[in-house]
């Protein structure tokens, strides 16, 4: 699957146009006030645009989007700070279902995913030990489940009680034995700690024979690459807005951008932006390639991008001065979004360690 450039351009344009019209920084205030932490209206609009069916096969009305196409949308999600569960449900949840679901399971869930009536998220990070599934009952706890507060169903990574093999289990949010500790993240989105106490679960059983372990490794890398694209959108916005500020803010009778020290620091931010762009593109390409090379590039990109984005965000605040730490400007919102991104699907150190291991393997 390789999405053609025309489709990617169309996706990017329609997402950007939608955000221009409906999701400006000021319009977004209303979304931040939603108790659910996202806009239901925007979510159903995304369904209508086909963003929720990005990953679906063309036969099911989808785009069968590749990483570049997904990245085009994620870049907008980052630059416009979209609050909806695009990554969690439309890309990761749906993506994993497509890999691991049986034909019947897919038929049952994909229409609801595409029309936005179902939010399906992956609960992956274990609190202590792994979740264990025994027959059709699952027990364990998962941390930091992005949008888990609004999910209708969960895909839970687990191991089989008997064989110890990896399993992906489908769990209904309302099932007995499921409890959620919901909370808000620093960027205003919601998350949950998911606790499962002998909850009824349905195993995903793909006809393809792909193991759950392989599918989970793939989806984690896909999520990681999508986060790279989201970060690219944020970094580009921060560089742009800060650069503009240097041209309009005057102190000591001149534009602050005329100070050489700020010019040089702005150049360093631009360099970082270009590296983030190049690394994101390389990581997207690597997803399509063989597993051996994939890990090194994907995790290397993520580790470098995490550091680069933090540096750019810190500089953006510093160069904005006092207004940079207020809630009233987008800079501080990008800063908070980056904090959340940094905690999803492995932090910087985890990816760096993985990169080093892959690089130094004999």
């Amino acid at each position, binding site marked *: 699957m390789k999405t053609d450039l025309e489709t990617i351009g169309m996706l990017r344009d329609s997402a950007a146009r939608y955000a221009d019209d409906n999701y400006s920084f000021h319009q977004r205030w209303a979304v931040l006030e939603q108790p659910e932490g996202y806009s239901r209206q925007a979510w159903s609009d995304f369904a209508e645009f086909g963003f929720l069916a990005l990953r679906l096969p063309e036969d099911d009305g989808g785009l069968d989007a590749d990483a570049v196409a997904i990245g085009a949308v994620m870049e907008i999600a980052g630059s416009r700070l979209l609050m909806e569960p695009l990554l969690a449900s439309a890309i990761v949840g749906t993506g994993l279902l497509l890999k691991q679901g049986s034909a019947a399971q897919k038929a049952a869930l994909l229409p609801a995913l595409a029309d936005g009536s179902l939010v399906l998220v992956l609960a992956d*990070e274990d609190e202590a030990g792994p979740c264990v599934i025994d027959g059709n009952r699952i027990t364990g706890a998962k*941390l*930091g489940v992005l949008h888990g507060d609004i999910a209708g169903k969960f895909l839970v990574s687990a191991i089989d009680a008997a064989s110890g093999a990896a399993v992906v289990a489908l769990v209904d949010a309302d099932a007995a034995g499921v409890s959620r*500790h919901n*909370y*808000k*993240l*620093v*960027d205003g989105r919601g*998350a949950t*700690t998911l606790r499962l106490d002998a909850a009824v679960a349905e195993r995903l059983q793909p006809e393809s024979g792909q193991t759950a372990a392989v599918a989970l490794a793939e989806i984690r890398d896909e999520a990681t690459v999508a986060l790279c694209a989201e970060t690219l959108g944020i970094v580009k916005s921060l560089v742009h807005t800060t650069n503009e500020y240097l041209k309009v803010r*005057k*102190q*000591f*009778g001149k534009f602050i951008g005329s*100070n050489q*020290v*700020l010019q040089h620091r702005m150049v360093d931010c631009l360099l970082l932006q270009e590296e983030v762009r190049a690394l994101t593109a390389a990581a997207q390409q690597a997803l399509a390639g063989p597993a051996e090379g994939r890990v090194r590039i994907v995790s290397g990109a993520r580790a470098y991008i995490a550091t680069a984005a*933090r540096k750019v965000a*810190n500089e953006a*605040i*510093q160069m904005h*001065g*006092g207004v*940079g*730490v*207020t*809630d*009233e400007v987008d800079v*501080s919102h990008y*800063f*908070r979004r980056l*904090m*959340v991104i*940094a*905690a999803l699907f492995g*932090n*910087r*150190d985890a990816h*760096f*360690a993985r990169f080093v291991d892959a690089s130094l393997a004999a």
Partner: protein
Amino acid sequence: MSEQLRARAETLRQEVRDFYATVMPAELRDKAHRHQVLSKEDYVGWMRLLDKQGWSVAHWPEALGGKGWSPLERFAFEDELARLGCPWVIPFGVKYVGPVIYAFGTDAQKQRFLPGIKTTEEFWAQGYSEPGAGSDLAGLRTMALKDGDHYVVNGQKVWTTYAQWADWLFCLVRTDRDDKPQTGISFLLIDMKSPGVTVKPIRTMDGFAHVNEVWLEDVKVPAENLIGEEGKGWTYAKFLLKNERTAGAIVGWAWHVLDRLKKHARETRVNGVALIDQPLMRNRIGEYELRFMALELAAYQAVTAMVDGTENGSEASLIKLRGTELYQEVMETLVEALGHAGVAFDTEALHSAGLPPLGPDDTGGILKDHFYNRAATIFGGSSEIQRNIVAKVVLGL
């Protein structure tokens, strides 16, 4: 610097630790430990507690109720309080305007204002920055025009910390439209209850409103509230800024957050191994330890120069630069070490003394401080301005 002075500073540190353990009310100590948001009542209570200990104005001359503390004692006091995680000593009265009043004010002004500053009977705020005058303070435009026995003040101040609580605002204003930037400035004390004063909160990234915009519209200020001479405000402001840049607390804060980082890194296990034993984290914490050692020694060197009278004017800038940079980086790592708890946030809980959504009980407070202290390299003279100062006064550039 004499051995005697060193010994006095060490004794003072011990007194501060004893005070924290035995005198400070448990409730306030708990709030401080958790880095909770404090109310005005909390702060007033805190400042009065310090006053009772004889510490609120210990840096003032003895004749005015102080102890005539040396720079070393001042440093030791602020450093030790910050290491313990105590609330900050709100500086606007005791550190900023108080010394300006006793150095440049009339006897009547001293009698009127100094007692209330010492006991925090009256709460002060600082009206310095304006939308167009941040780093370039001399670019301020708030006008105070003389009209008989009073001034009529018009303008807008910004970043005014605790203006919502303040009884008084000490304010830099322009009393002469035509003068050069720095010569037309005067130093005025404005009663916040005056008609025409409007306080508008600014919400910062941490979800709170510690700072404000203060709008001044045809505010009548009695001429007797002018400090010193008209047009000399810049001289007084520079005198005050010297007090703003004592930088004692930043070393203590850096120590405090590094201590918290080590604590959480010991207590947090990832894949069965304590974070502090994971090579990348261990290495990073080790680097911070080393940098803290350098900061602490450089700070002592700077304070020694102040005590000995050999300072060159760059000392406080250097400490602020290194201290705030280290503080911010340690904070980033601390937030990272908290994992998912480090991105979960509940502002309500921070007000109501409730628990954070996830993680240890100080998590919410750490996040709040992480957000707010991105401004540590901006307020009180940004890092860029500090470097300009050092370039000018030491390097002659």
